[in-house]
């Protein structure tokens, strides 16, 4: 049976077709990820809290607004490289960046953060001021800072916020809280305690005080105009990028975890990882298992006995406890997981291939070739392999989900490789931080579902390949 026949038989069954469609999808997504994601995505992005700071924490996917309605607010990010206006001011220059935020009156934004990257000045340090004009016409200054001046021995142009941006989380910033209290005292005549503002700065910014209920705020819907004013000393001074984030309660396609990580990205990165684990393990385990099985079945005698006894023992080692132990002692490395699963994965195939070879060996074809003087190795690899190849191929596919599931189980027990995010690890994070118990379903359902679908893909392919392995089925079709 040549590969084209195998494909044809596979595609003639329903489960084979579904499996092929799934596999194609998995491979395409994996290729996309390999092209678009950096290979060090794990350490530099996924496990780097700084890259997720501006995301809402534990936010449900954006499409849950379909049924959450007004309960949910979207995540808004405003970015600008160029000022909306720039006016000369004596010997200085004033640049303004304006962002308009429409507040519907429901939940206040979960986060309010300002970031500025890459500030350069020639002589006078830049002064930055963030103000918001509310729908009631009042203006509130949220933040003001002067960029650090020249240090000793520093020569112009002075570079600031190159590697680490200036980032202020206004929704929890003490200085911002003080400004809000000042604003309420002066413009509304309401004295707010520090405690009343604890964690409620955004409620105050987007609301009005409720009489008789200190610390409670009535949402004030309408258009809020945020203005960042930068006063620079010269027109040649640079402000690279200005970013204002109004955190939502929902985020992206797949939501976020408690660290604000975009789960969609983590899940995407899991595709090539899962496929690589599954395929690498099954290919190598199959090669070892089939070779030993053929050797054992063909050589007979002592070689056969030794291989058989060893296979018998080796195949009975309970996999999961040993994997846990070895990974725990030798280190949490993904390549090690794959190597160990190869080491423990081959015996099943050896036993089956050996018995098939024994059956074929007594067959006339091999006897005939032997009589014609073909060498032993040649016989083994040309004739026997040719006959059992489709079976070995089907076994390889069948073995693939086992490796993926085993890795997921290890990850779930907290033994995943920290430098490479996998679906199992995302699930483990969710489980360990108690996502299950507070109902963060978007965190635990999708990775599990992806593991199941990937494993199912290979199971379906195996079902589709059954006629290849079992010719009797092929005829009855």
């Amino acid at each position, binding site marked *: 049976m040549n590969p084209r026949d195998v494909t044809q038989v596979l595609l003639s069954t329903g489960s084979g077709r579904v499996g092929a469609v799934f596999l194609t999808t998995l491979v395409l997504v994996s290729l996309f990820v390999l092209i678009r994601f950096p290979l060090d995505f794990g350490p530099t992005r996924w496990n780097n809290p700084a890259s997720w700071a501006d995301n809402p924490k534990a936010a449900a996917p954006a499409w849950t607004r379909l049924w959450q309605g007004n309960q949910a607010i979207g995540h808004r990010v405003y970015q600008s490289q160029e000022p909306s206006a720039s006016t000369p001011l004596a010997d200085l220059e004033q640049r303004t960046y304006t962002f308009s935020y429409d507040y519907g009156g429901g939940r206040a934004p979960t986060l309010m953060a300002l970031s500025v990257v890459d500030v350069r000045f020639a002589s006078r340090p830049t002064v930055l001021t963030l103000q918001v004009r509310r729908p009631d016409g009042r203006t509130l200054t949220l933040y003001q800072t002067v960029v650090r001046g020249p240090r000793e021995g520093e020569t112009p142009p002075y570079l600031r916020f190159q590697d680490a941006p200036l980032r202020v989380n206004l929704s929890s910033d003490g200085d911002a809280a003080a400004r809000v209290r000042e604003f309420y005292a002066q413009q509304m005549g309401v004295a707010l305690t520090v405690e009343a503002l604890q964690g409620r700065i955004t409620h105050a910014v987007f609301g009005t005080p409720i009489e008789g209920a200190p610390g409670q705020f009535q949402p004030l819907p309408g258009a809020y105009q945020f203005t960042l004013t930068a006063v620079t000393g010269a027109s040649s001074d640079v402000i690279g990028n200005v970013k204002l984030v109004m955190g939502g309660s929902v985020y992206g396609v797949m939501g976020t975890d408690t660290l604000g990580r975009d789960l969609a990205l983590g899940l995407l990165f899991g595709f090539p990882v899962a496929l690589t684990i599954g395929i690498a393990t099954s290919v190598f385990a199959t090669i070892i298992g089939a070779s030993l099985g053929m050797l054992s079945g063909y050589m007979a005698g002592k070689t056969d006995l030794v291989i058989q006894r060893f296979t018998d023992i080796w195949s*009975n080692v*309970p996999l999961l*406890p040993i994997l*846990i*132990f*070895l990974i725990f002692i030798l280190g949490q490395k993904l390549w090690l997981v794959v190597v160990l699963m190869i080491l423990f994965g081959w015996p099943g195939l050896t036993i089956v291939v050996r018995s098939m070879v024994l059956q074929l060996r007594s067959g006339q074809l091999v006897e005939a070739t032997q009589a014609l003087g073909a060498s032993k190795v040649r016989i083994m690899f040309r004739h026997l392999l040719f006959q059992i190849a489709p079976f070995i191929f089907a076994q390889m596919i069948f073995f693939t989900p086992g490796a993926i599931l085993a890795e997921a189980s290890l990850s*779930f027990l907290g033994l995943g490789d920290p430098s490479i995010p996998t679906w199992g690890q995302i699930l483990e994070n969710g489980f360990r931080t108690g996502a299950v118990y507070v109902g963060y379903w978007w965190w635990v359902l999708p990775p599990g579902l992806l593991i199941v679908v990937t494993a199912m893909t290979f*199971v379906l392919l195996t079902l589709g390949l059954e006629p290849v392995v079992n010719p009797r089925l092929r005829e009855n079709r």
Partner: protein
Amino acid sequence: MSLIWTLAIRGLTLLGVLFVVLIMLVVALGATGFSDRMLRAIIGEEVRGLRTSLAQTIRDPDQLEATLEARRRDLESFYGLERPWYSRLPSMVLRVVKLDLGSARTLRSFDGSSRVTDLVLERLPYTMMLITTASVITAVLGLWAGVKLATRAGTALDRLSSYLSAVSYAVPAWWAGILLILLLAFRLHLLPAGGLYSTPPPEGGLARFLDLLWHAVLPIFTLVAVSLGAWVYTVRTMVLNTAQEFFVTVARAKGLPEGRVMRRYILRVASPPIVTNLVLGLAGSLGGAILTETVFNWPGMGRLFYEAIITADENLVVALTFMFTLLYVAARFVLEVLYVALDPRIRYGSRT
């Protein structure tokens, strides 16, 4: 005679498994330098204990230190710490077998002991309860459903079952457990999400026992659900394969009623391969127990394994790896005996 011979071979193979695992344990421990750390910790503990008791009698601090140092050296040579790790292999194997692995880092048994032996043996019954109950339920349900499906081979129900078995193979036990917690415990408030007893535990022996059963429902259900599909399918295939055998046709020709043909000619003959598959599924259900206990916070050896990993407690991990292997080997042997009892071809001849 050949019956004993067959069993002896299987028994030797299983002992070989245990031996291989033990060797793997101690070599990994020795080569990574962990066994040194483990022994030093034991010695340190003993010396600390000695210090508190000697502090009463020996007043001079210098003399105390000297006595303790001498004792430490004695212990080091007793445990063979001055020799390379591979020369200590036999004694290491013995220590693992006896679970003589010192004390756990942070975990304590219910009555406060930190000895690894106490911890492991205390958790063992809970794991056994979970695994045996789930295995028995799975085996019985699977046999019943598998036979039912075999008599309806080729129907829509049969096809559906083959897809369900594929799904059941692809769904990890722990994820199924999480789904069940989300759905049954948190959404519908039908069953407890985990643990052994309610808080506070009910008074009275019977009430407590019923509470325990009530908490065991979800873990057992999870274990059964994830292994049942594949098992039903196996039974169905075995029964169908046997039903196509020629002697079944002969039995029908003999005018035997259908029920008798099913029992004596199909099920009886199919039982050895069915037991084989039960044997092969055992390792899986053991692994399933580790994960299921973790998910449901069921304080058996599996949950202990997880806690040992999380707290990086090496002594416990070693002990549990060995215990799980031991449990597996013992259960395998019981099933081997059952297999031999079921098949006269093995009882009186060679295994093919």
